[in-house]
Structure formats: structure tokens, C-alpha cells
């Protein structure tokens, strides 16, 4: 009981924040202001981005997207074709989405770090967008269950095609509507795609786990209207905006900077949508969609669309605004302010698409509270 009294007394004293004596700091107290601003410039763009870092591969097509999986296995060219009984492609679906597909050998060398719907590597386009392939199907099945084993026509193929499979891998083409996912090379070892080779002669089967894989995804062109401000992964949809913060003094400390807008969720395949804000490091006017941005996000959140569709996204970008206001040239221009990008993060997450209103109460706005430095004790 005595201890309770002590703690109660301590709490009463500690919690008391009455403004006693504060006026003794009069003259030292700096100005504080808040300001609300709309973007000075705003734009949106789509860009094909490599999706190989993903731990899953997407396969499917719907009214917005078409996605193919591209996988390469370290098959040796020394396999004794005459001794092979069967070759199986082993895949592990992420969820229960059923998806029939066919598998074809890829016919062009590609680099997983750069491969997109359009590009095979950093300099070479596919001959046909979506990946180049040999026309013959070498396997086909329906994604279902936890593990799918598909017989692969490998031994009976022409040696040129077999070489293509070894060197360029294979493409999985969807044949149903919907979007399925399978674990990729970033998943745990037991879930990675693999090829199992069974031999006739009693020799132990061999398993070759995929070494590189990526998703090639495209969006249907009629789903993006000119002037839309969009955010989404897969085919990366990014919205750029720039706020003029020249009016904020260079010496100010940004106490808070909150970017807010009311999103219109146009398409989604998950309940929480990962978003991030990145500061641009180059001029958007000069570089456009190729302007570099700070890889470290200034803010990120998982947006869970509310049922009343009236929820507002708030993102704390205090550090980013502080960097804008603190870096000025001799004329006071904010030299580090190239604007910000709102984007999905990671951009290999399940596809979604958010529309940002340009005008109206849900349009983006930035609310900044800033404080000037206090005066010295000695004046």
C-alpha cells in the first residue's frame, strides 16, 4: 500500500505539465507555423521493372494484366538421354488458385536482373514482347495443390531445343483467367521450382533446382487512361509530384510533414497494399520515368482499403521535407527538391492499382509544421 502511494505521488508530479515558469523563456521562443500546400507539379508514368527479386512468380491473365513465368534450371548437357525414364517439372503453388498453363522453351538468352516484358537484358529487347520461345509445348498442366509435378518432354526433343532449355530456360504461359502464384527461387529450398530426372537403369533420380526466375508481366493498354495518376506494382505505376517549399526558412526544423490523399482503389489482388514514398534524386522534367530516386523510402505503409472507400492515406515524410528545406543554393532555391514518387513497394508484390485524384478534397496535399531555432540563453 505504501509503495502504491509513493508511485501515485510520483505519477501525479510527473504527469503535471502545467505551464508554470514558461514565460521566463520569453524572447527565446521561436516562431512555429503550419502550412498546407498542394503539389506544384504532378505526373504519373508506367515502367516495366525487373521482378526477379520476388519470392514468387505470377502466372495468369485478366482484364488488367497478363503474366508469364520465366525459369532457368542448371541442367547439365551431359545427361544420358538414352538412360532417362522421365523428366518432371516440379512447382509449388502459393495459393489455391487454379490455373492451367503450358510450358515452352525460351529461345533467347536473358538476364534475370533486367528481364521484363519488353527486355531480355539491359540492352536487348525480346523479338516479341513477353519473351521469345520455341512454339512447341513441352509440358502442360493445371496449377493446384501444394506441389505440382508435370511430365516434361525433354528426352524426346531435338538436341537444339534441349540446349535451349538448358541455356535459356522455359516460359510458362497461362491459359485461364485469373492470377496464380508459384514460389520462385527466392523461396525456401524445398519450395523452389525444380526439375527431377528419373532414370531407367535404377540410377538414383537427380533434382535440379531453378537458379534464376522472373515474372514477365504486362498491363493491357486500355486500362491506363491518359492523365490518370496511378500507383501499382508489376508494371510499375508511379505518381510523381513536387511541392514548392521555398517559403519555409532554411533554418527551420520540420516538426511534421504529412502527405495525404484519398485513393481510389481500381484493382487489387490482396487486402493490404504496400506503398512507399521515395525522394527523387534527379530532375523529373529532364529524366522523366528514368529519373533516379533514393532507394531508401522516406515513408512506407500498408494501405488497407476501407469498406466505406473514404479512407485517407497519411504518410509522414518529415525527413524528406527537411532535406528539401535544408539544402538551398545562394538564391534560396531548394536544390534537393526534385519531388517525390509514390509507388508500390515492393513492386513485385501482388498486383493492385490505385488512382490518385488530381483535384477535389481527396487530392494530394502536404501539411507541414515547422519551428524556427530558439534564441540563445545569452542575448
Amino acid at each position: 500500500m505504501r509503495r502504491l502511494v509513493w508511485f501515485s505521488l510520483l505519477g501525479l508530479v510527473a504527469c503535471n505539465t502545467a505551464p508554470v515558469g514558461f514565460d521566463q523563456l520569453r524572447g527565446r521562443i521561436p516562431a512555429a507555423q503550419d502550412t498546407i500546400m498542394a503539389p506544384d507539379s504532378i505526373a504519373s508514368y508506367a515502367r516495366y521493372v525487373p521482378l526477379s527479386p520476388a519470392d514468387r512468380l505470377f502466372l495468369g491473365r485478366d482484364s488488367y494484366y497478363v503474366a508469364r513465368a520465366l525459369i532457368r534450371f542448371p541442367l547439365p548437357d551431359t545427361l544420358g538421354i538414352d538412360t532417362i525414364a522421365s523428366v518432371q517439372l516440379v512447382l509449388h503453388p502459393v495459393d489455391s488458385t487454379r490455373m492451367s498453363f503450358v510450358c515452352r522453351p525460351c529461345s533467347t538468352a536473358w538476364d534475370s536482373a533486367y528481364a521484363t516484358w519488353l527486355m531480355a537484358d539491359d540492352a536487348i529487347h525480346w523479338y516479341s514482347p513477353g519473351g521469345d520461345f520455341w512454339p512447341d509445348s513441352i509440358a502442360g498442366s493445371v496449377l493446384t495443390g501444394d506441389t505440382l509435378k508435370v511430365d516434361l518432354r525433354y528426352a524426346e526433343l531435338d538436341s537444339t531445343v534441349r540446349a535451349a532449355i538448358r541455356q535459356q530456360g522455359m516460359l510458362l504461359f497461362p491459359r485461364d483467367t485469373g492470377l496464380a502464384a508459384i514460389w520462385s527461387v527466392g523461396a525456401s529450398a524445398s519450395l523452389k521450382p525444380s526439375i527431377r530426372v528419373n532414370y531407367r537403369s535404377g540410377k538414383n533420380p537427380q533434382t535440379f533446382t531453378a537458379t534464376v526466375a522472373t515474372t514477365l508481366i504486362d498491363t493491357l493498354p486500355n486500362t491506363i487512361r491518359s492523365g490518370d495518376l496511378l500507383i501499382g506494382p508489376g508494371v510499375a505505376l508511379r505518381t510523381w509530384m513536387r511541392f514548392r517549399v521555398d517559403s519555409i526558412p532554411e533554418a527551420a526544423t520540420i516538426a511534421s510533414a504529412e502527405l495525404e490523399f484519398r485513393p481510389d482503389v481500381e484493382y487489387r489482388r490482396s487486402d493490404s497494399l504496400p506503398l512507399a514514398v521515395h525522394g527523387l534524386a534527379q530532375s523529373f522534367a529532364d529524366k522523366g520515368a528514368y529519373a533516379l530516386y533514393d532507394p531508401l523510402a522516406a515513408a512506407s505503409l500498408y494501405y488497407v482499403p476501407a469498406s466505406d472507400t473514404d479512407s485517407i492515406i497519411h504518410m509522414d515524410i518529415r525527413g524528406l521535407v527537411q532535406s528539401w528545406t535544408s539544402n538551398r543554393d545562394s538564391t534560396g532555391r531548394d536544390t534537393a527538391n526534385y519531388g517525390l514518387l509514390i509507388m508500390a513497394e515492393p513492386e513485385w508484390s501482388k498486383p493492385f492499382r490505385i488512382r490518385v485524384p488530381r483535384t477535389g478534397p481527396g487530392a494530394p496535399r502536404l501539411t507541414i509544421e515547422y519551428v524556427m531555432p530558439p534564441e540563445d540563453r545569452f542575448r
Partner: protein
Amino acid sequence: MKKTATIILATLAFGWGQSFFNMRGLGGIVPPADARTTGLGSPCALSPLNPGIWVTLNQTSLAASGLAGIAVGTQSGSSRAVGTVRPASAAVAAPLPLQCRALLGIDDRFNQDFDVWSESLPDTAYRRHVYSHGGIHALRAGIAKSLLGRFCLGLDYSHLLGGSKEEWRFEGNSGAYSTTDTIETDYAGNTFQAGASFQTSRFSIAALYEPAMTLTAHRLKHVHGVVADSVRTYRIRLPNVMAFGGGVEPTDKLGLSLGLDLRPWAGATLDDVDAGYRNTWRISAGAEYQLSPEYPLRIGYSRQTYYFDALTSDPTGTAAITEDGLYVGTSIPVPKFGSLDLSGSVLLRRADDLTEVAGRLMLTLSYRETWARRTRRWGY
């Protein structure tokens, strides 16, 4: 209970400042931090701060003091408590041949601890919280010479050093706090103190003089988030300090003392510009009564003015700060060691509508092998 007390003391020590009047000037002047002297109203000239007080010293004397305090401020109908627990001083006096004494010590000169909150401004939810920790301390080394067993002359060299750290915090409209600015100030300076005393078994007088000194304050202002920090150096010139004290012992059990400290600081300058300080004085009166041969009872009273003014509710107004203090103290013998001296004080500080009532408890652990053969000497 011990655990609870530890938590409370630790919280007090790190969480709060000491006074609502520490925000201006160099902060509040810290009186001699010694429980014996404090029990008599803290007469500076009769305290161990005076290098000329050591007329008799047979054995090495060591003393360390700690202070716990709580202050309740009242202004415009609002009240708030702040507190502090901290070491206050340490001092060593050792006898040397030829009736000389060597003196070493560290003590507080100015205290800059404070912790205040603003009220919400009328048109926003802004709120500020400003707190500071630190002060200016003196490292002392001196020598004293006793003459004829009645007189003592002493000279102290003091290196002043210290610093304070102010944190300015800001609460925005959303209710989130952030530290927006940190101001760190380091102080350095050097000074001397000359002291003298004359003591008999029934009567003693003492005087202390500290010449004008220059204090350098290096200020670093770190504006959080802003790339360039701001640095500035201030040169503070403080005029001299004089202190006088005297005591009589009308009976074997009763001793009386008086103290007067003068700080003619109206001439203080800040970067060679008038700092706007005041001349200040401090008077104290004390009495010690021997309840038993080993247990003295000390009481004291002091009144003083501050060298800086407080700001008033009038936007351009200032008001003098006055402080009245009541003190009580005693000593508890610690066999084969020395004594544990205690003092309690209640201080009432006033300036315009800001009032502060501070309660302090000071403990001094003194190592003296000769406590049992102690003869009364004023102030220590």
C-alpha cells in the same frame, strides 16, 4: 521500500530540473554545499568555500555532499513540482607542516537545471517542452596558513568548468513530439579566492574575496534536421564577490552566526555589453545549540536577491527575484569515521506572479578522525 526509493530518486535525478528560476543569466547561484553551513543559513564566508577558514586542522578532512530537492512552482493558479537529486560537492583539507593546509575541492557555482512546459497556444495545439541539465562547477586547489592559532589566511585557485544541455521539444497538431533543437553550452574560466579568518573560542570573523573573472561560454546549437549547426562563443565578465561572516558563542551550548554576501554584478558584461544584471546581496543568520555533546541542532534563516530579473506577465516587464530560506540541521556522529551532517531547508522564491517553494535535503558525509575531540569552529 528501498527499491521504490531508488526508482523515485533515479527518476527525479534524470527526469526533472531544479528550479523555475534557473532559465536566465548563468542560472541560479548555488550556495555553499555543506550541510553544516547550510544548517546555519549558508553563510559563504564561514563555509569550507573560504580557504581562510582553516585555523585549526589536525587531521585530514574529507567531505562529500549530496542534495535532494523538490520545488513547487505556482503561477496564475497553476502549480507544478520539479525535483532533483545530485551530488553537490566534495572537498579535502589536509594539514601540512608549518601550520599550512592544502585544500582541494569541487562544488557547484551555478545551476541551470529546469524543466518547463508551455501552454497550448490559442489557435493551435502547439505545445513546447523545454528542459535543461547542467551548470557551472569549480575545481578548487588552494593553500592556507594558520597564524598564532587564531588567524588563517588562504588562497584558492578555481578552474570553472561545466556545461548545460537544453532540449527544445515541440508537440505538433497531431500530438506527436519531436526534439527540434538542442543547445549545448560549455563554460570555462579561472579565478582566485582569498579568504581570512580570526577565531577564538568565543568569537570568530571571516571574510572572502573573489576578484572579477571572465567566463567563456561556447555554444553549439544543433537544429535537428538542418545540416549546419550554429556555433558561437560568449565572453562573460563577472565582477567580484565579497562575503563576510561572524560568530559568537555566548554559552558553551549556544553559538550564533551572521553572514553577508555581496555581488556587485550590475557591471557584468556580455561580450563587453552590459549584461543587465543587478547588484545582489544575501544575508543569513544562524544558531547552533548543543542538544547533547554529540548532537547539535542548527537553525538558520537567509534572504537574498537574484542577480537577474524574472520576466513578468507584462510583455516588457521584469521583476526582481527574492528568496527567503529557513534551515534546520544536525550532525550524527559516525564512530571511527566522522559524522553525517544533515540539513533541511525550505526556500520561498518570488517574482511577480511566479512563486516557488523549494524543499531541500542535504547530506554531508565527513571523514574526521577527530570528531570526538571537536571544538566548535564556525561553518565546518
